């Protein structure tokens, strides 16, 4: 899982700049650098490899055909790409639900994402995964469970409370406190 290029955001920015100008080689390099994390995420959400490949193809084709949508001044490329991939996979997962339709509306216009903190820049894929997992391990089992249900299954507070048979307020606290703790962990790691 180690990217041979590392996770250099400025290198990505140069590749993005080239592929916006229809440079297939740059697009292929971006695919080589990031297809594994995108595919891992989509497979985790959909739990089906063939469907996941369809969605990943759809994500990268969307990227190619709508290259101008990504604006580097609104945040780094990889989080933007992961947001696009997650939205597409969740859309696929819940095609007929109202929540899904709302998300579809957002898919074509991925919002601004903060610039990666300085310490982020040198982390390769494997180290990044290890760090996120180790930070998640510091959360309580309930916090971890609730956050994963929201992120990978696209469930709302109410849906999670219902699935876990826990009070709504408790689930909200788990998610908020869990995410704040993760944020602190990222900042401490810097």
């Amino acid at each position, binding site marked *: 899982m180690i990217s041979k290029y590392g996770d250099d955001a400025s290198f990505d920015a140069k590749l993005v700049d080239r592929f916006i100008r229809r440079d*297939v080689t740059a697009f*292929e390099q971006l*695919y*080589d650098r990031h*297809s*594994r*994390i995108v*595919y*891992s*995420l989509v*497979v*985790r959400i*959909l*739990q*089906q*490899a063939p469907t*996941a*490949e369809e969605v*990943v*193809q759809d994500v*990268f*084709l969307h990227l*190619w*055909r709508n290259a101008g949508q990504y604006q580097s001044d609104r*945040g780094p490329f*990889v*989080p933007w790409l992961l*947001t696009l*991939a*997650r939205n597409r996979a*969740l859309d*696929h997962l819940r095609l007929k639900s109202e929540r899904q339709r*709302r*998300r579809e509306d957002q898919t074509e216009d991925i*919002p601004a*994402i*903060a610039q*990666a903190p300085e310490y982020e820049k040198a982390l390769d894929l494997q180290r*990044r995964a290890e760090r*996120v*997992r180790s930070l998640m391990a510091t959360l309580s089992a309930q916090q971890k469970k609730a*956050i*994963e*249900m*929201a*992120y*990978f*299954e696209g*469930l*709302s*507070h109410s849906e*999670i409370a219902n*699935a876990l048979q826990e009070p709504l307020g408790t689930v*909200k606290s788990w*998610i*908020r406190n869990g*995410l*704040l703790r*993760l944020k602190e962990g*990222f900042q401490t790691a810097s």
Partner: protein
Amino acid sequence: MSEQDRFRELIEAYALGALDASEQAALEAHLAEGCPGCAKGLEEARYLVSQLAYLAPPAEPSEMLKARLLREVRADLGPAKITEMKASTGTIPLWLWAGVAAMLLLSVYSTWDARKMQREVQDVNARAAAELKERKKLEQELSVAKHEARILTDPASKKIEIMPNDKEMPKLEAMWHPELGIYITGQKMPMPKGNKVLQLWLIPKTPGAKPMPSHTFWPDANGKIAEMVANPPEVMAQTKALAITEEPPGGSPQPSSTPLWVGGVS
């Protein structure tokens, strides 16, 4: 707590997509008013949430996916776009292009041809490897399909209706061949909640004997189940019923919940 603080507390859950409709609408209205603190907090929260992707177990897309994608991308470029790209070079004087071309030819021609050949060989090898991999995959799929077809059509197979406890849920059907295994099918199945999986159990006829664990599986994105159990853990003659429960990822050695579907074998 001020209204600002109340909205600020919602930012992380909003970035995660976990807010319920009313809270989401209220926060979006607040953001639309241009609150700079919340906007900045949201950008940071979105970055934080995007990092959760790295919790996904590592998985590798097939070589064929890349081949398909690049084929589409190159097809998109097409002759028209290539002509357009060539036309855009017209703003640079022709004599300059000629000079640059001559210099390039002089300096790199000796190595260019060899590198081109090398790239072409690599490209052909990569495509051949990808095609071979895909062919093996198709052969495997064909073999499985033939196996399933034999189970479905062989008179020796026994049909078992696996009925849900909840009448709102769909029923499943299993065909059990004494030698070829069990093939389970179903439609309109809901995805198990909470990251759980479905697990098949064989309930032995022997009184007091524990259920025998078998495959874990999920419905696909369309709610379809087509699960092949080539080597059931017990023979048909010794099995009283098939049962299906929801279990944690990876399955369980013994059922951890009440069966949601049960079908009598004999």
